């Protein structure tokens, strides 16, 4: 059974979609089967961040009952699977987001993690995504307006039966006026899974001929490193224990040859 986790924030622009995409890839690197669902049916852009804009069948078609869910699953970077939402405004008005719960339960057995990229606000499609998840991770910024919206999202998620398990603080610049990690943790009464620093590499990842998530393009940049730690905390797997980390580099292989001798 998959852990179905909604990535939500309440406020727009906190980096939910970026966190969802990169966290999904980081979990896949830890050997997990991961499905990402763009549950932001009105303002879908997870596909753009993953660099996969051409998807003939989308979540819209499935929610409209015009396609089977398995036909809307695509291969994403590094083994991640992905269900995009359509960009059509007409379809967005017609879809019944309440069907998301049924869609998620159809896919539950095939994955270890299903991450739902939830829209901003607390409108119907947000409620649908939160109620389709078992757990919620909040993404916020170290500023009071973002935290206020995260608080409201936490209350709504709990009302809908989704357990809010932690928070990711994004765009951390370590300025004096930022609300600290400890303050955020005590205000939200949640553990902090990671403080992702403001990193120009994240923005630069969208500005390439072939767009790819920062964790793919620059795996050693500060944001990628912290997002990998978030995945590690979320899954309970130490980064050093992951299957992918057992792949040795050239020098390590060379040393191991000498050690054997």
């Amino acid at each position: 059974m998959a852990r179905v986790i909604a990535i939500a924030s309440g406020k727009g622009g906190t980096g939910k979609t970026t966190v969802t995409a990169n966290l999904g890839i980081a979990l896949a690197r830890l050997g997990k089967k991961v499905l990402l669902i763009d549950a932001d049916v009105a303002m879908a852009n997870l596909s753009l961040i993953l660099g996969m804009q051409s998807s003939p069948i989308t979540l819209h078609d499935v929610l409209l009952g015009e396609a089977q869910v398995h036909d809307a699953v695509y291969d994403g970077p590094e083994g991640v699977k992905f269900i995009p939402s359509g960009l059509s405004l007409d379809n967005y008005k017609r879809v019944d987001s309440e069907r998301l719960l049924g869609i998620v339960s159809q896919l539950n057995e095939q994955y270890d993690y299903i991450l739902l990229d939830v829209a901003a606000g607390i409108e119907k499609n947000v409620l649908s995504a939160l109620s389709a998840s078992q757990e919620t991770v909040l993404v916020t910024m170290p500023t009071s307006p973002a935290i206020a919206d995260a608080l409201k999202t936490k209350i709504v998620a709990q009302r809908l039966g989704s357990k809010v398990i932690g928070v990711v603080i994004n765009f951390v610049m370590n300025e004096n006026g930022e609300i600290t990690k400890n303050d955020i943790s005590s205000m939200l009464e949640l553990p902090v899974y990671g403080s992702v620093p403001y990193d120009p590499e994240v923005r630069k990842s969208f500005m390439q001929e072939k767009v790819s998530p920062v964790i793919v393009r620059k795996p050693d940049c500060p944001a990628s490193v912290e997002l990998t730690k978030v995945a590690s905390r979320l899954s309970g797997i130490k980064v050093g224990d992951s299957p992918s980390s057992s792949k040795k580099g050239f020098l390590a292989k060379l040393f191991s040859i000498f050690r054997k001798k």
Partner: protein
Amino acid sequence: MVIKILRSFAARVLDDDSTKKPHSQIEFLRDFLSKHKYIYTQDFEENLVVLKRKHLVDSFLVTNLDGSIVVSSEGNGHTEGIMGTAMLSYIKSELPDSESVLIKRNDSWFMLFPLEKKVFIVKAGSELSNIELRALSFELNSLLQTNKQTLEKKRVSQTA
């Protein structure tokens, strides 16, 4: 270019950061969350009050399919119970795949949701979405089951 580099250097060296932590807002937000703590107790009646606050509703009533009351947050509601179940039964007969019924009456909304051979009748100032109504019904149903088990345990221990 040189000025830009010097400014950047000065900002780093002199820690030219004019921002300050908004302490009053932090306190305000802490206070906000403290008003939204919903802790259930051993007392079933108290839990009904918690549930009402949590889901922002005025009252709720659970009936069997014949209209007899299982529980009421206000301790009454026989008329609403019979009317609600009759109405739901009529709508279900006309539209068998309907999931919930929402009725606007005066300044209130009455919402009917069938679950496990019971009818959950909710009254609120604004309409709940089907998702919210279902979440409330499931939680209330779970409370009813827990209460039933507690009462059963008590009864067994008393007879023993």
